[in-house]
């Protein structure tokens, strides 16, 4: 062993912290190296001096009596124990010694609350800014590279609705899978909506041809004119777009309109034949909760037009939501009749349109 190896370990050697092998190597080196041996001797000498150090303290029976008295006191006051522990914990936490200072802790708590409140306020501000920009983004997304004048043609309305449906499917692939597995005809209807417009009649399947009249959305003027009892007397009082709330209503109306049109397209071979409406039922349940929430909001805001529309929509959604998975055709037809009577699909399209514009 060399001195360079020995010297860094010499304190540990003197402290008896080295393993047997390393100790033996150091001892062998010290026996041959005078400089390192001197260093070790100096350390040993220091230890001898420190060993002679005497403190002017003593432990007396009186001290034990004090300790015992304190322990007895704590035993008699069991409620004081957790409090004392809490004080100790806080004292340790804030490094304040045994004297816990409520004022300092209170100040720290106030600072913490203030910082938390500021973070929440900033997060909300950021959230509302994002929501305020969403309607504009929605308009842009719904009609990419289209001038504002031509974007609200009937075909565009239908395409917009399908865009929403596609967005929903992309956002919720699980639901898409369920729909594909359980309601093959529904999937066909949904995916063939665009195909109906693009394909000539000769290339359409009989099923597509049968569905075609229902799938074509009415013209804007027709839709407005047909929104009789829902929009009656309130067409002129449709509230102007009002930030995120109007956007929410418009989105909801679009989704509900899409659902109702999908439901309306369901056909059975006979009145007693069962129809698979599991997808519509699930969708109706989801929309129902949103509808209730939005209707209450609309009522609270005094938005009578939206409240009336949502109020009309609600029982229809409720009826669809309560249908069995394999619904009887007559039950489905009954709901369709009510939809037709209320002209709810057109009214929903108008509402979506007004908000979008």
């Amino acid at each position, binding site marked *: 062993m060399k001195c360079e190896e020995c010297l860094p370990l010499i304190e540990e050697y003197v402290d008896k912290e080295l393993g047997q092998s390393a100790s033996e190597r150091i001892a062998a080196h010290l026996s041959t190296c005078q400089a390192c041996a001197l260093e070790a001797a100096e350390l040993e000498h220091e230890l001898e001096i420190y060993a002679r150090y005497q403190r*002017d*303290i003593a432990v007396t029976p009186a001290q*034990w009596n004090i300790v015992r008295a304190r*322990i007895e006191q*704590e035993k008699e006051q069991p409620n004081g124990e957790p409090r*004392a522990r809490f004080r100790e914990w806080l004292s340790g936490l804030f490094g304040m010694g045994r004297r816990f200072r409520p004022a300092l802790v209170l100040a720290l708590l106030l600072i913490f609350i203030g910082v938390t409140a500021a973070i929440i306020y900033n997060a909300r501000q950021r959230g509302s800014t994002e929501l305020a920009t969403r309607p504009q983004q929605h308009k842009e997304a719904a009609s990419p590279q289209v001038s504002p004048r031509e974007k609200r043609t009937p075909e565009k309305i239908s395409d917009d609705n399908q865009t929403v449906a596609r967005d929903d499917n992309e956002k919720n692939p699980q639901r898409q899978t369920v729909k594909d597995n359980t309601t093959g005809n529904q999937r066909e209807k949904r995916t063939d909506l665009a195909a109906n417009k693009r394909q000539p009649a000769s290339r359409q399947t009989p099923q597509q041809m049968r569905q075609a009249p229902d799938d074509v959305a009415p013209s804007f003027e027709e839709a407005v004119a047909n929104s009789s009892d829902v929009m009656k007397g309130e067409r002129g009082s449709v509230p102007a777009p009002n930030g995120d709330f109007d956007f929410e209503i418009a989105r909801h109306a679009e989704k509900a309109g899409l659902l109702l049109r999908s439901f309306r397209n369901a056909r059975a071979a006979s009145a007693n034949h069962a129809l698979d409406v599991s997808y519509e039922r699930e969708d109706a349940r989801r929309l129902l909760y949103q509808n209730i929430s939005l209707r209450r909001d609309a009522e609270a805001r005094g938005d009578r037009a939206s409240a009336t529309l949502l109020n009309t929509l609600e029982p229809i959604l409720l009826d669809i939501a309560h249908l069995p998975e394999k619904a009887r055709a007559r039950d489905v037809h009954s709901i369709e009749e009510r939809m037709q009577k209320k002209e709810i699909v057109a009214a929903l399209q108008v509402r979506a349109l007004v908000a979008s514009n």
Partner: protein
Amino acid sequence: MNSASDLIARTRAGDDAAFQLIFERYSRPVISFIYDMVGERELAEELMQETFVRAYRNLAALREDARLSTWLFGIAKNVAREQLRSRRKLSRKVELDDESVQELRDEKPKPDDFLINQELNGVIRDALSRLDEDKRMVFALKIFQQQSYEEIAAITGFSVAKLKTDLHRARAEMRRLIRPYMEVRS
């Protein structure tokens, strides 16, 4: 019969006499360590009492495999540190060479050694008080209490590497401070 584990078990079972034995066995090293840390006799006594009261209160939390002395030194370290922090806030200066402290002894040395030992004690106390808190703690535990590196790491929460460094620097600093006395003595 009176091993540490027996005493702990008996104390946990409510035998206060067993805890008195623990006090008698460990109070001396604990108060010495606290005194090295805080440098005041009365305060060290008070903190030693606090250490044992806390130990009694928390004895249920002592792990089976933990050494009692290590655990007690750990509590003593916390108690002493809390006091030192509190005292720093009050900007009170530690007076290690207080005359009243030096007047009290638990052993009576021979008359010819008295002055030498008194001087030695004063020098060491003064040198200790000049070390920073971490170094003072490690030095006291290793040199005066003969705790192993592993035990010191458990008591202080320091890594072995840090405590080796602190110990080396504390030794060097102490050597520098007491060297004149060592040369006279030799």
